[in-house]
């Protein structure tokens, strides 16, 4: 159960990262900032909602709204305002630009919310608990699992069963030919960046009730998310799912049976995968090189 919860949390956070890389070929470090912004916005809005005496059960909707607000306000600003001018540059340069943006957004968060922690404990305990193997788990954890399932399945359906998704797959395979065929590639880049950032903000907002929302929240998640997508293969959705499951299960087993190696084991698995599959477990063929 611990592995499932942890994997679900990781998968939701890592999904947007792998999507943005898959479409835009950007290793997006600002993903951690969107996670933190989602957590802060979720904690602030939900805290205000509960303080105003509105129904606590609707606080889950407020968390969702907070994440959407973050994504539709901040993501287009970054993509249209900065990133679109950088697409012609080398991937490493864009990585450094997103890292710079990550540092700037960390300070923006401190300017807006200060350094004191924010808590919204109510939604975590509101739904009661359930037992597995004699251990109690707050039912809220099932929301995290549900969020991961809906995000993953929904994105797969979007990509493979809708017209928009199929056009996006075309953009993934070859942006130049897609552009020649009349696809507005820049619009797809904007949509992808906003949707990927929304997934990060959702993960942050729905994590907020379980943690203390403090500066630096985005650092931890970005490192783990990279581990997940590297294990699975950058740009691969099934890879992100498998990567999250591997990291979640390996870490939980280690915590229960060999806690001393908990830190080491995630990166050991990553190193092993990369040693035998340098592009990750689900690495795709490179169509552009054909």
């Amino acid at each position, binding site marked *: *159960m*611990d*592995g499932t*919860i*942890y994997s679900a*949390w990781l998968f939701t956070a890592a999904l947007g990262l792998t999507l943005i890389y898959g479409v835009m070929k950007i290793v997006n470090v600002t993903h951690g900032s969107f996670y933190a912004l989602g957590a802060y916005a979720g904690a602030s809005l939900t805290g205000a909602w509960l303080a105003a005496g509105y129904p606590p059960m609707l606080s889950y909707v407020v968390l969702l709204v907070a994440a959407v607000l973050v994504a539709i306000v901040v993501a287009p600003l970054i993509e249209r305002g900065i990133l679109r001018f950088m697409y012609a540059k080398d991937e490493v340069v864009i990585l450094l630009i997103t890292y710079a943006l990550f540092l700037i957004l960390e300070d923006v968060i*401190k300017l807006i919310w200060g*350094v*004191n*922690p924010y*808590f919204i*404990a109510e939604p*975590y*305990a509101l739904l009661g*608990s359930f037992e597995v193997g004699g*251990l*109690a*788990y*707050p039912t809220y*954890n099932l929301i995290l699992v549900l969020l991961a399932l809906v995000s993953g399945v929904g994105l797969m359906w979007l990509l493979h069963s809708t017209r928009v998704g199929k056009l996006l797959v075309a953009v993934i395979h070859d942006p130049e030919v897609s552009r020649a065929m009349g696809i507005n590639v820049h619009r797809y880049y904007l949509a992808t960046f906003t949707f990927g950032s929304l997934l990060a903000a959702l993960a942050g907002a729905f*994590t907020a*009730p*379980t*943690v*203390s*929302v*403090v*500066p*630096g*929240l985005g*650092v*931890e998640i970005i490192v783990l998310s990279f581990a997940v997508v590297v294990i699975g293969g950058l740009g691969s959705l099934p890879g992100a799912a498998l990567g999250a499951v591997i990291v979640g299960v390996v*870490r*939980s087993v280690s*915590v*229960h049976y060999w*806690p*001393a190696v*908990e*830190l080491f084991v995630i990166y050991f698995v990553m190193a092993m995968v990369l040693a035998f599959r340098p592009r990750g477990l689900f690495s795709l063929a490179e169509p552009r090189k054909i």
Partner: protein
Amino acid sequence: MRKVLVALAVAAAMPAAHAQSVKIGVVTFLSGPAAAPFGVPAKNSAEFVVEQLNNGQAPAPYSKKGFGGAPLEIVLLDEAGSTTTQVTEFRNLVQRQNVDLIIGYVSSGNCLAIAPVAEELKKLTNFFDCGTPRIFEDASYEYVFRTSPTATMDSVGAALYVKDAKPGVKSIAGLNQNYAWGQDSWGDFEATMKVLVPSLDVKTSQMPKLFAGQYNAEISALLSAKPDVIHSSFWDGDLEAFILQAGPRGLMKQSLTILTTGETAMHKLGKQIPDGTVLGARGPFGPYAPNNQYNKWFHGGFVAKYKDEPNYASYQMAQAFLGVKAAWEKAQDANGGKRPSNEQVAAALKGSTFEGPGGTVKMSIGKGHQAVMETAYGVTKLQGGKLTVTNVKRYPAEKVNPPEGVKSADWIKGGFKAQ
């Protein structure tokens, strides 16, 4: 005649108005995860104490304005960043900003790195919060002091409290951050418990990464292990996340849980900390502070100024200023009323005893450079919507600190006998 009198009065007032100020470098976390629980409360405390001292509003014997009449001026510096950065910034404070002395540092790593540099630059430096006992156990200094007790006291005090509160304790488990603070705290606690209960069963020691944030697996491991006692030295967001995640799962109800820095969370997370959780404050601070005139002055003034409770970092900062002030004025008196040198202040602070809002502070170990104090622990109880501590037990300084010249680890292994 009237003009002459006015001129005389102005002339008489001149030396006081232009008395050379004492420039104090204050270093603490102003950003990063340690800012909220330690850095900002400590900075607020420094500003409050300096304002009070400059106005001569502190109780006697601290009622003389500033340090011996010289007004105090603070140069604030952020402790965030690498240890190398801190060493560079320390040199800047001394060599470019020309501060007279430095009070600061939360991180043990920073304290260990700064101490030899302070000695090299011959600049009086008082560590106000960092916990590692290694500073004065592994080296000797003339210019370096610490007016707060070491982390050894926290762990030994915690073990003594556990044995008192749960005499039949047979098993323990730990949840500590995987770096020096967490490992040392757990190591000292485990070693002390093994002395107190030779047949002790150590069920599990969980050491997650610093700022990991998600502890469901660790909490499950602790619930499965069913230890009598759980020890955690978690701090900041990790402490708060652990409380938020463990509370609804009944961990604190199953095992007596001792949070050695829990006091920093009690005012923010009051209702989420289950009744019966043992909280520490790294000494007799916060809810464990004595009801003396210094605490009434400090606590009352702090709450009035900031509309917030001072936590143990605030107390430690206030204590650091008062200790140096007492030494400065003693040295000034011995110097015929003239401004004392760093060497003279250091000589006066060495081995001194002074009173503060946390009670009596004795600079009695580390060759007179390291403070010892009594410590206290208690269990939480929500009363009238406010979290309080009950069943408070106090342990005298000599019972929870090693004697002079004995290393903490050796003292614990040897049965932590009092002097």
